[in-house]
């Protein structure tokens, strides 16, 4: 195994094309506004602002590699944030702002457990009952949001402990925001598990040929349940991270998280038909649009032009990536 082949094993599909696009984007924006773009502040804020989406997108990568889809992540994030915040408040006389680490820890557990519950439900309906993932997760997309509204009576839940907001939310560690550390850890573990373990191998096999995987003795049903469970758990964690970051559990404003995560995964070279893809690609797929949006604001592009420009660059990026691959195959 050559070093290059080894690298390819971890990164999965070749993601160099999108990496080049990302570097070019940074270079262009940097050249236009070096004072504003190439600063620690911009780097820090860009990283922080993508952390939550990154965690969602890591889970989505697993789901899409199995040829599935999960539309529910944004709503599960909302639901987990709401249950977590309300539990913390309940544990601290209705307002957890001054609560301590114990309460925060319970909040984390509740968030993750809430996400896990939805993920498990998705997984069971998809893998056991054999229903189409799109319909099942569209259902839980609506149901989780509705449930979140129901228990919060439709309004955002405040009262997030200050200790949580000040540490996980806005704290840094040697200049690296803590939220970014969490997202990076999740991403690293996600990439390693998918790329080097039996679990990851089985994920690819199921996406490549589910029937072959079943006949090879892979516990396909259980594995799929686990994958959706994982996506749910990560959505729960993301909900907790959002709670720390915004210091409020928002009800609205997460209805396009699912599409954003899916787009990042596909942009990163994972096929919607499953069997191939990588977490590293997803990371790039998360950052390209984030850098674009940020860069356009900094450079001062007209607001109505911004979505058009983002769309153009996204399509161009994939085009570039594809033609690079084709050229390599020709060689």
């Amino acid at each position, binding site marked *: *195994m050559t070093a290059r082949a080894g690298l390819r094993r971890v990164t999965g599909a070749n993601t160099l094309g999108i990496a080049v696009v990302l570097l070019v984007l940074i270079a262009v924006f940097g050249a236009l506004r070096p004072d504003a773009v190439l600063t620690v502040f911009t780097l820090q804020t860009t990283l922080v602002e993508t952390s939550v989406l990154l965690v969602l997108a890591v889970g989505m990568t697993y789901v899409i590699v199995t040829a599935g889809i999960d539309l529910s992540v944004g709503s599960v994030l909302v639901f987990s944030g709401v249950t977590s915040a309300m539990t913390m408040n309940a544990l601290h006389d209705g307002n957890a702002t001054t609560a301590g680490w114990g309460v925060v820890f319970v909040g984390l557990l509740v968030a993750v457990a809430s996400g896990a519950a939805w993920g498990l439900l998705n997984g069971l309906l998809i893998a056991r009952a054999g229903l189409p993932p799109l319909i099942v997760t569209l259902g839980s997309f609506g149901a989780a949001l509705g449930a979140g509204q129901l228990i919060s009576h439709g309004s955002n839940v405040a009262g997030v402990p200050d200790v949580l907001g000040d540490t996980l939310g806005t704290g840094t560690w040697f200049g690296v925001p803590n939220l970014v550390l969490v997202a990076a850890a999740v991403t690293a573990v996600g990439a390693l598990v998918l790329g080097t*373990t039996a679990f990851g*191998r089985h994920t690819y096999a199921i996406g490549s040929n589910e*029937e072959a995987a079943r006949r*090879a003795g*892979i516990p396909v049903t259980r594995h799929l349940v686990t994958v959706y469970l994982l996506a749910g758990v990560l959505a729960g964690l993301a909900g907790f991270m959002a709670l720390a970051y915004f210091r409020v559990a928002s009800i609205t404003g997460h209805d396009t998280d699912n599409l954003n995560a899916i787009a990042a995964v596909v942009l990163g070279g994972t096929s919607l038909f499953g069997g191939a893809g990588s977490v590293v690609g997803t990371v790039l797929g998360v950052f390209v649009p984030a850098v674009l949006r940020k860069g356009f604001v900094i450079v001062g592009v007209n607001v109505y032009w911004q979505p058009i420009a983002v769309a153009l660059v996204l399509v161009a990026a994939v085009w570039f990536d594809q033609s690079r691959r084709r050229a390599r195959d020709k060689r």
Partner: protein
Amino acid sequence: MALPLLDARELVKHYGSVEALRGASFTVRAGEVVALVGDNGAGKSTLVKCLSGVERPDSGTISLDGAPVVLDSPVAARSLGIETVYQDLAVAPDLDPAANLFLGRELRRRGLLGRLGVLDKREMRRRAVASFDDLGVSLPDVDVPIGQLSGGQRQSVAVARSVVWASRVVFMDEPTAALGVVQRKRVLDVIRRVRDQGMAVVLISHNMPEVLAVADRVEVLRLGRRVARFDAASTTVEELVGAMTGALSQGDS
């Protein structure tokens, strides 16, 4: 004569309104190669799928070593020592040959990493290359997804997988259909070797000379039912074809 190792009786299997098996029986003993022959659509592959846990028959009984067993999943069949080469190969086209060879039974690293599920890719690759050499398969590049291999190369990988893992019964559904002359000979050699180790081999093939060359017994399926059984040593291609087409009949045997 030895007791049957695997014995299926009166299996029935419907697909919608199509009756693929209409009371098929089948027997194989340890240490013998049984050829299962029959016309296209006779139900051979369906029978194999029922006996390897992929499909559940609508009725009928299956017993292993005389005791009835329920083969409700491929895992169940595998845990009883039954391996299968499927006619449609059942490989993961996006994975490389070594990954397919070890699919569902991946080797792990030693120590902590292994317990965390980390794969020993190097070792799997090494062993895969050895298996392929054994079958006379030359792959241009062992890191290429199996979907990009030639038809024969892909079939070789599926065959290699079954013989590596078999412990009691190996079903081979047309394992040599796409193989070159040399590879075909190697596979027949492997079949004999496996038989000599005391395992039962069930070979499905439309190549009658090949069948007569390697099988000890032949069972004939026609329209979803077993219609004849032969001793390979004392039968001819004509007799087999007669049984398959219904020209010659032993009744429901």
